[in-house]
Structures are given as C-alpha cells and as structure tokens.
C-alpha cells in the first residue's frame, strides 16, 4: 500500500514537472505561434537567477517566486522588442531566430559563470514520509505550485481584461486592432508573461536539478512534445498532454527503467500525433482554454 502511494506520488510529480516546464512554451508557442527554441534557455536563466540571488544572501523563496519570473520576464520583453516583433506570422523565421538566441544565451552564461556551476541551493523543505518510503517535501510543493500556476493562468485568461484582449489579439490581430487594441503592446506583454512563467519554472526546478548553461537542452524537446501533443487549447492541452505523456513516462520508468520511460514517451507522442494531428485538444475539449 505504501509503495502504491509512493509510486502514485512520483507519477503525479512527473506529470506536474512536465506541465511546469511546458506552460511558458504553451503561452509563447501554443498561443502566439512563435516557435521558441530558446525556451530551455529561459528556464536556465530562471535557475541562474535563483543561484545568483541566493548566493547574494537573498531568501530562497523570494528568489524563486519573485525574482526568477521578474528577471526572465524582463529579458522576455527585451527579446520580444528587439527580435520577435519583426517576425510574427513567420513561424520558420522565429525558429531560426530563437535558435540563434538560444546559442547566444548559452554562450553568454558560459562565459560569465563557466561551464559547470556550483549550485549550493538545496531543496528548502524536509522529507515527507509515506510509511516505509520517503519523498522530498519540495516535490510535494512543486506539485501544488504547478496546480496553482495553471489555475492562475486560467483565471487571467478567462476573467481579466488583459486575458480577453490577449485571446482576441491572438485569434484575429487586425480585428482587435481596428477595435482600438494596441496589438503590439499585447504581444509584448503576452511574450513577457510566457517568459516569466518559464523563468519561474526554471527557478523552482533549480534546487532539484542544479543549473548548467546547457541544462535547457534537457527540457526543450519534452516541452515541445507536450505542447504539440496537447494541441491548440493551451491550458487544457498542456494539462492533458502532461497527464498522458508524463503518466506513460513515469509508469514505464518505474517498470523498465529510464531508457524505456523516454522511449515510451516519444512513442506515445508519435502515435498520438498520427491519430490526432492537431493534438488532444484538436479533438477533445475544443472549447476550452
């Protein structure tokens, strides 16, 4: 029984982990149609923000929950103003531009911090006991905060004026513009928010995975697979994609080891996209956000 609960806990953690690393990309790619290959580097920058801030003596919770999204959000706005805003509607060009951006960010961080970085931020919560098993309390916290994050993105999109304007602009920019919406500003804010969510995710994961200039590469493929499998509805899609792919990955990792876990995840995504080329929300929950 303890084992079942412990495994279930891990399964939920794998799922929420996938949702956490994908949510920022869902906003930037799923909603704005910008293929952001620098998504992994946004996560990495969030991690570095936490490491630098805690080394400077700032409380770890403040660094993770406030500074990481703030810093990466600002970087996102700068990137949008300098690079992305010239490229809306040109998906292949955004791919090339953000790939270049990703290489640039890795290069800059490497030259500042070196190739390997001492990450002496430990997960700031103790151990949770499940009978004979133990799990990290911080993992439980990450599960909860992922749920909170999904919920607040939903609230923002559904009930705020900004959410309404953003959704309208993404659906039909010309119509929104003729109704008096400054679409350029909306694009900038949305991109910045997407980057901030990525930064938050990167900051939250730093104590669990450590930071390296190249750590983004380990996230980027999974994030894209999750968002594409999820389909056009960003929240329902990301959640459904994470539950399906994370669940399969977690179960197979436990039964047959990590290698098979990764294979099962990729295989599931291929089969899914063959059957539903527009992702899960292209067929189910179409009306959702």
């Amino acid at each position, binding site marked *: 029984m303890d084992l079942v609960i*412990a495994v279930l806990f*891990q399964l939920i953690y794998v799922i929420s982990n996938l949702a956490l690393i994908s949510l920022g990309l869902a906003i930037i790619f799923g909603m704005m149609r910008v293929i952001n290959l620098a998504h992994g580097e946004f996560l990495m920058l969030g991690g570095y923000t936490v490491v630098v801030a805690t080394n400077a003596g700032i409380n770890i919770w403040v660094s993770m929950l406030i500074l990481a999204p703030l810093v990466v959000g600002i970087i996102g706005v700068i990137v949008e103003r300098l690079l992305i805003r010239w490229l809306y509607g040109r998906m292949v060009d955004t791919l090339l531009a953000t790939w270049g951006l990703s290489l640039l960010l890795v290069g800059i961080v490497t030259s500042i911090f070196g*190739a390997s970085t001492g*990450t002496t931020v430990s997960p700031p919560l*103790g151990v949770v006991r499940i009978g004979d098993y133990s*799990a990290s309390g911080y993992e439980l916290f990450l599960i909860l905060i992922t749920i909170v994050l999904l919920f607040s993105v939903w609230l923002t999109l559904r009930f705020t004026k900004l959410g309404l304007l953003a959704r309208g602009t993404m659906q039909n920019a010309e119509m929104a513009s003729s109704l008096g919406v400054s679409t350029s500003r909306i694009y900038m804010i949305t991109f910045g928010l997407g980057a901030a969510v990525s930064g938050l995710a990167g900051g939250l994961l730093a104590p669990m*995975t450590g930071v*390296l200039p190249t750590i983004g590469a380990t996230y980027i493929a999974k994030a894209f697979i999750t968002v594409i499998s999820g389909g056009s509805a960003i929240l329902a899609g990301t959640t459904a994609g994470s539950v399906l792919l994370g669940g399969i990955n977690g179960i197979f990792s436990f039964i047959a080891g990590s290698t098979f876990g990764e294979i099962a995840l990729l295989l599931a995504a291929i089969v899914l996209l063959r059957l539903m080329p527009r992702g899960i929300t292209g067929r189910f929950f179409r009306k959702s956000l």
Partner: protein
Amino acid sequence: MTFSRRSFLAGSSALALSSAPIIGRAQGSDKIIFASILDLSGGLDIYGAPMAETTKMAIDDINAAGGLLGREVELKLYDAQSTIQFYTQYATQAAAGDRAHTVHAGITSASREAIRPTLARFKTLYFYNTQYEGGVCDFNTFCTGSTPAQTVAKVVPYAMNKWGKKVYIVAADYNYGQITAQWMQRFVKENGGETLDVEFFPLDVTNFGPTINKIQTAKPDFVISALVGGAHVSFYRQYAAAGMNKEIPIASTTFGVGNEQTLISAEEGDGIIASYSYFEGADNPTNTEFLSRLEARLGAGRPVMNELAVRSYEGAMLWAEAVKLAGTPDRDPVIEALRSGLTYNGPSGAVTVDAQTNHCNMNVYIGDLKDQKWNIVESYEAQPPADTQLVCDLVANPDQSTFLFENGLAAAGIE
C-alpha cells in the same frame, strides 16, 4: 575561472620574452610538436578545462627545464567542443598537418575510439589520459588512466565491508556505464555480495524520482553509481532531498572526476565514497609542490585537481621521460622506451608503464567526501591494470590495435 584578457596578454608576453633564447637555440622548425585535443566547450568541458590547464603547465615545465634534447616543445591545443566529428578532424590535422610527435587526446570512450584508428594509420604516438572501462589493446596507444580492476575492484569490497552485501547499481547508458556496470556486478559477486538491480540512464535524464522509489523498494545496503555528466548530478540532489543519503549510502566510480563535489552542497554530498588514482590529499612532496605551483600559476580560484587533470600532466611528463631516454622524439624508439617499464614519479605517486597492455601500474586511493573535500581513507600502491591484462598481451603479439571490450565482457571471453 578568473582570467582577464589583460592578465593573459601580460602573462603570455612575459612568457614570449623569457622563452626567446630557447627559440633562438631551437631555430624554428626544429621544435618538437605535442598536440592535445580536449573538450574545452560544450557539455564535457567540466572534464576538459582542468585537463587543458595541467597539459599547458606540463609543457611549460618541460620548456622551463630547457626543453627536450635541447629542442623546444610546442603545444598545439585543439578544442573538440564536445563533438566527435571535431576529434577526427583535429586528429588528422595534428598527425598530417602539424606532424605532431605525440597526440594526447580524448575524454569519453567514444572520442578515443574515433581518433585511435586515425592516429594508428598516421603512425602517430597516442596517449589517452582518462580513467575508462579498460580493454584497449593497441601498440600505438598508451592508456594512462585507471581502469575498473584498479578502482572499481577496490571501492566495491571497501563499501561492502563498511555497509553490507546488497548492492544497487545505477549507471550512464553508453559504453562506459554499460561495461563498468558489468565490472561492478563481477566484483560484487567475487566478494560474496548480491546485485539487486542494475539501471541505466540516458545522459539527459534529470528526474530520478521513479528510481529512488525502486531503490527504497529494493532496500540495498548501498548504491553504487557510474552516472556521467552535468544532468546526472541531479541524482545526488534528489536522493538527498528524499532523505535517502542518511539511510542508504552511495559509492561511485565517476562522482568527482568532473569535480561534482563542488557542484552540490556539503549536506547533499557528505559520506559519498569514490576511488581514483589521485585525490588532492595524496600525501607526497611532489604533490604538495605541484599544487602550490598550480596555485601560483592560476590563483586561488584554480580548479580542484582530480585524476583526469593530474594524469594529463603525468601523461605528458611520462612521454617527456621516454623522449629523453630514447634520445629522439621519433615514434618507434619512444614506444620502445615507454615499454621498457618506464616510471614517472608524479603528484599521484609512481606511474609505471605495463608493457603487456600499454596501460599503467599506479597508486589507487579511496576517498570519503566531507564538506566538499575528499579525505583519503585507504590507499593501495602500484596496482596493475588486471582487467586488460586478462585479454591483452602486446609482448606476445605487438601487432594489435583493437578495443576488446567493445561488445561487453562476455564477448571478450571474461565470465
């Protein structure tokens, strides 16, 4: 690494001035060429950067002592950028273009196997200064790093005596991890223990939750790891976050060669044990003197020395001794000099070439991690590369250039 352009210019111009008389004597083309190919950028630079520093130091030391045979040694250092294709390209460049007298290169086993045939074809003497899984049997190649019979065979019984007989193995999913895991299972069995499970991980896995559950289910006496690279460092973090480091201890054959102990906090790393042929605490005057010169050279922010970095220095010095003994930098006499059982007394102690395998006899240490520093708890003198000796005999049959463990131990005829 703190290294400004200004200090680099100042340092290198001073060097140029001080070495001017030697250049005059050496008359340009008369130099002996020493090529080195290492990963100085990309994912593997945690290993490559310190190796490059000690290689540079070795060449400077040789030249400061008047060069070799009255000739200056010139270092050609190439950055393979953690990309195998660059290894092949630069190996060709070093052998055919630079006409290097020796090439010291490679970190991963994959990079070694990419360039070994190239250097054999060009008849260019090759040194591989990295700890690895054993099994290279090549007349032209000298493997100076430790192999499983030297380190794994020591750490497994040590850990079993200390903690118990039930072992759980976690390893990286490529030839180093796979073959090392086979050695671990063999040594566990030889010492009367039991391997509960073996698990392999692709190099980009960062979530070890399911494995930690499995370890809790299996209840081993200890975990032994051959995990590799930056992403895998998360295993030690997550293991500690689940409180496991207090319950089931870890031994490792890889933790430390990338200075991983400085990447995680002291509480997360305390109590991990590992075995290498060098730790900074190696108690001999050469080592003390080596470390203080390194610090004078690179400042207090110098990289922590590990087996890979120190063996890169010792490998270069071993080659230099062979050139002196042979009286020429040409390949065949130098190989003969090395295979005469040549010894170099370096920071790790005596390193002696074993003519049967072109590997080295070396001291081996077991270290216990405390506050991000290794304390040597056991040392073994002059350990032979017994694994490769089982299958390789270059004295009886010198005309060999193979990697015998390519398809695992069973395929090499080891039970």
